[in-house]
């Protein structure tokens, strides 16, 4: 089955999105029978990937289509339950690979909520009016403010450890101590108390921000939403742009978008992703941008690249190596970067830059070996050059290729390589690349705007290996074949270790711990063995644990 990441509010089965002035409401009302796969019912507002795909879509649309929205209220459409978290039977029945990718995607979605709030002033309020457990509480944790109904019975909880022998999979443990500053001993109590915490204690422990009695909950929600809207800098009078459906064609051998092509060589387990740079000049003014709407190349390419990587992650799991290529006129690409730089105060430009930031982070976090092929006629300039810094290594063509009349390979930096697209560690890719080597970073800054040929790029540390046309094909073939022969697990682990040098942030901790601890726990017999907690869940039978501490 092909999992499709494109959707639209008209097609939602689990969420309702409505806006009224500066407030939007995202109502979770999961269709029990609407699971993405067979074999489970999405009871009690529990979710699977399909539910989260809709959420990710809604968050994205709110940013582009509703610039007037300053606060988003997340709430439940069901009585007495906010959200019961990820569906346990879905998890129990899913392959390890699906679980890992599911958790990664849901984490990216929650990060997108925090990005909307932190960087684009669209604040999130979680209005918890019923039981809120596990992933449900983690969803609330992504919001700026959690308002909990105080009715003597509604609880928030992270019951994963006592109930399921796994960990909260969407950053719950990290966010309670790193974002909400819950004291570690109280966090320990909370995370081992299956029945959770309610009322004033939830406030005292900093697990929620506010409680309100049931009879005044609507009043409290709207008062808080209004107060949060006051803190937003979003424009009052901007007009949103519609995000139309993606221009794409799936085939046996890949996917063809308007600016991105994915070609699959399943036998060699290689995917080649080619991005074609902009073909026309950027508009003269911000008004011209609004007229182009979702056709504006940087927006279109970012959406297509995002969809392509999600497709590879979920639907092409056997692919070992992703080769990233670009084509087009570097000058036109740089002109677009100049536009994005010059109009950074424009709300839509701001959103497009932030979208690129998220898409590039998604690429950083993709568990495939990635290589950039910087060839004659390529367009590794500015924003697209960032792809060459996201991958594990790059190969750059040296000199002209015989029988190829395209321009020699070059790599050009722009202002976009020095700030707007930080990685999850908070540094730019070049800062991370040149960690501890300020001189190298300065040299790169000085090279801004000037096309660098292979030898210059190598000297600047911007390319890994340079090859002339005699060696090019063989060297790359051998590299890819060798890479594909290594253990996929070892590669995933090694790449994740090397990609994120530099400081830890909440985001790196969340992904790092997900990859290390959660995925470890998910593999252990205590969770997934025949007698483990996930397999036994719902049968009434107690799990049989191996008690050895490791």
């Amino acid at each position: 089955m092909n999992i499709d990441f494109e959707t639209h509010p008209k097609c939602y089965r689990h969420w309702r999105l409505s806006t009224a002035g500066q407030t939007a409401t995202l109502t979770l009302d999961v269709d029990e029978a609407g699971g993405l796969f067979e074999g489970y019912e999405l009871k009690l507002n529990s979710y699977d990937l399909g539910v989260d795909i809709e959420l990710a879509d809604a968050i994205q649309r709110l940013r582009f289509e509703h610039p007037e929205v300053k606060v988003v209220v997340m709430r439940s459409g069901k009585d007495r339950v906010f959200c019961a978290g990820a569906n346990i039977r879905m998890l129990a029945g899913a392959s390890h690979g699906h679980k890992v990718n599911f958790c990664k995607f849901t984490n990216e979605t929650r990060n997108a909520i925090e990005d909307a709030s932190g960087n684009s002033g669209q604040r999130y309020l979680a209005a918890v009016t019923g039981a809120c457990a596990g992933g449900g509480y983690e969803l609330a944790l992504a919001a700026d403010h959690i308002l909990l109904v105080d009715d003597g019975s509604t609880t928030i909880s992270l019951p994963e450890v006592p109930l399921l022998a796994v960990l909260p999979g969407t950053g719950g443990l990290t966010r309670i101590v790193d974002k909400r500053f819950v004291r570690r001993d109280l966090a320990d109590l909370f995370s081992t108390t299956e029945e959770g915490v309610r009322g004033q204690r939830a406030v005292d422990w900093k697990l929620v921000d506010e409680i309100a009695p049931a009879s005044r909950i609507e009043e409290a929600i709207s008062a808080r939403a209004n107060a949060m809207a006051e803190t937003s800098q979003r424009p009052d009078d901007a007009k949103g742009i519609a995000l139309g459906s993606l221009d794409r064609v799936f085939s046996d051998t890949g996917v063809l978008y308007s600016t991105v092509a994915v070609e699959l060589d399943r036998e060699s387990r290689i995917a080649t992703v080619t991005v074609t740079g902009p073909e026309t000049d950027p508009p003269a003014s911000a008004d011209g941008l609004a007229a182009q709407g979702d056709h504006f190349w940087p927006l279109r390419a970012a959406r297509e690249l995002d969809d392509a990587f999600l497709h590879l992650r979920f639907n092409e799991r056997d692919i070992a190596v992703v080769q990233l290529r670009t084509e087009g006129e570097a000058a036109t690409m740089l002109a677009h970067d100049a536009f994005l730089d010059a109009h950074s105060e424009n709300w839509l430009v701001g959103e497009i830059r932030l979208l690129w930031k998220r898409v590039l982070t998604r690429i950083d976090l993709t568990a495939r070996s990635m290589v950039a092929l910087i060839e004659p006629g390529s367009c590794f300039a500015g924003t697209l050059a960032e792809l060459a810094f996201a991958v594990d290594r790059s190969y750059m063509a040296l000199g002209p290729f015989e029988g190829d009349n395209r321009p020699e390979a070059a790599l050009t930096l722009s202002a976009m390589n020095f700030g707007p697209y930080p990685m999850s560690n908070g540094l730019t890719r070049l800062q991370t690349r040149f960690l501890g080597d300020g001189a190298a970073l300065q040299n790169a800054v000085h090279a801004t705007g000037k096309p660098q040929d292979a030898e210059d790029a190598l000297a600047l540390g911007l390319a890994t290996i340079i090859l002339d046309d005699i060696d090019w094909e063989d060297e790359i073939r051998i590299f890819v074949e060798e890479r594909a022969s290594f253990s996929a697990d070892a590669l995933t682990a090694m790449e994740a270790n090397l990609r994120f040098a530099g400081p830890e942030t909440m985001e790196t901790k969340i992904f790092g711990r997900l990859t290390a601890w959660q995925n470890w726990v998910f593999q252990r017999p205590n969770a997934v063995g025949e007698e483990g907690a996930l397999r036994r869940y719902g049968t009434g039978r107690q799990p049989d644990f191996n008690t050895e501490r490791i």
Partner: protein
Amino acid sequence: MIDIDTVSYDTKIPNNVGLSEDRRVLKALEKWHPGYIDWWKEMGPQGFQDSLVYLRTAVNVGADGWAKFDYVRMPEYRWGVLLAPQEEDRVVPFGEHLGEPAWQEIPGEHRALVRRLLVIQGDTEPGSVEQQRHLGATAPSLYDLRNLFQVNVEEGRHLWAMVYLLQKYLGRDGREEANDLLMRRSGDPDKPRMLGAFNEATPDWLSFFMFTFFTDRDGKMQLESLAQSGFDPLSRTCRFMLTEEAHHMFVGETGVGRAIQRTCEAMKAAGIEDPNDIDSVRALGVIDLPTMQKKANLHYALSLDLFGSEVSTNAANAFNSGIKGRYHETRIDDDHRLVDDTYPVVRLVDGVPTVVDTPALTALNMRLRDDYITDCTRGIARWNRIPANIGINFEMTLPRQAFYRQIGEFANVRVSPEGTVIDDATWAAREGEWLPSADDGAFIASLMHAETEPGRYAGWIAPPRQGIDNLPGDFEYVKIET
């Protein structure tokens, strides 16, 4: 000073759990007690708090004479902590610990489960007292007034029973939960009781009788299952509670029965043969039988909801852990583990209620509900003898279990009492035939007037065949003015 208080306090609480030697629990109960009395005064029966009521008080757990009858003011009722005698060498009778010695303390791994069960059971006890608090003003007789108060004080004692277990076995968590049991209020939007049926209004005495027949019978089934528990103090507590619960169901069954009897007698006397000639029957000042059927439909459906989802992980966990068994567990002839068994569950398959074999462990709510339905059916059969004996052609029936459900498999479909899935329009058109309407409620309310003379009974209800404690029906069960 403290010693004197302790002794006098202890003597105020009849108990067979050695409270005077258990200083930790005694202290906890001492702290809880004033809050309980405040709750009783605020939320217990409205009025009559200074009246002398002829009540039975549990004073012992022996087979002969566990209760003694006397006049008492309700706030001075001696709510006690009484457990059925400990059986020697009792073992866990079911689940994965089958055959192991029964636990005298809660095993740590079952703490959350036991806490949840105790809190949910405990929450229903004060809930029903709150629902019934205004009924004293319209009691059809002093006999019925006494029965109401007996039920109320015993629900209060059942709260004590759960609170004792919470405080004795669940430490600080238990004490907090015990306090919260006094904070929630039936029907209060801000702090409702935990289960839906305990937030519904009990608007009149017919509702009260239906409630004690149907909803207290759910309580009985729950207590029967908990009485099987491998956690011995819970088992012993529930076994003793069941001796009291029987009276509550007696009040319900005889209350509805007496209303049916009075209606049939009045119809016979007036020469009305057709039970559906509602206007003529109502003109006699009695409740017509179809309206009683509608009341029964409502209370039955609400009570079925109390059993939870048909397929339930919690129920499976509770059984497998040895905490909550089945009705008459030890009399069932099987392996008492159920790991590989199945049980037929009525589920909604393609819009049609269909029997599906389901893993038996997860189907325990369904099984208990089936036992409950059997129990209800017997009571209905006893009611039906009354019109038959008087010569009125009418039979009460139980609707199919998919009718008017808010929880579980049938929560989102409209189903007729006969079990047919119907559309919203049909439901809207026929709801009034199946469930009491506002007009029905108003008519019943018009009959609700207090009778406070000993031996006098409101016109809509027949006197009991005999009184309480072998006393006559015209005994002064409640001395209203003292």
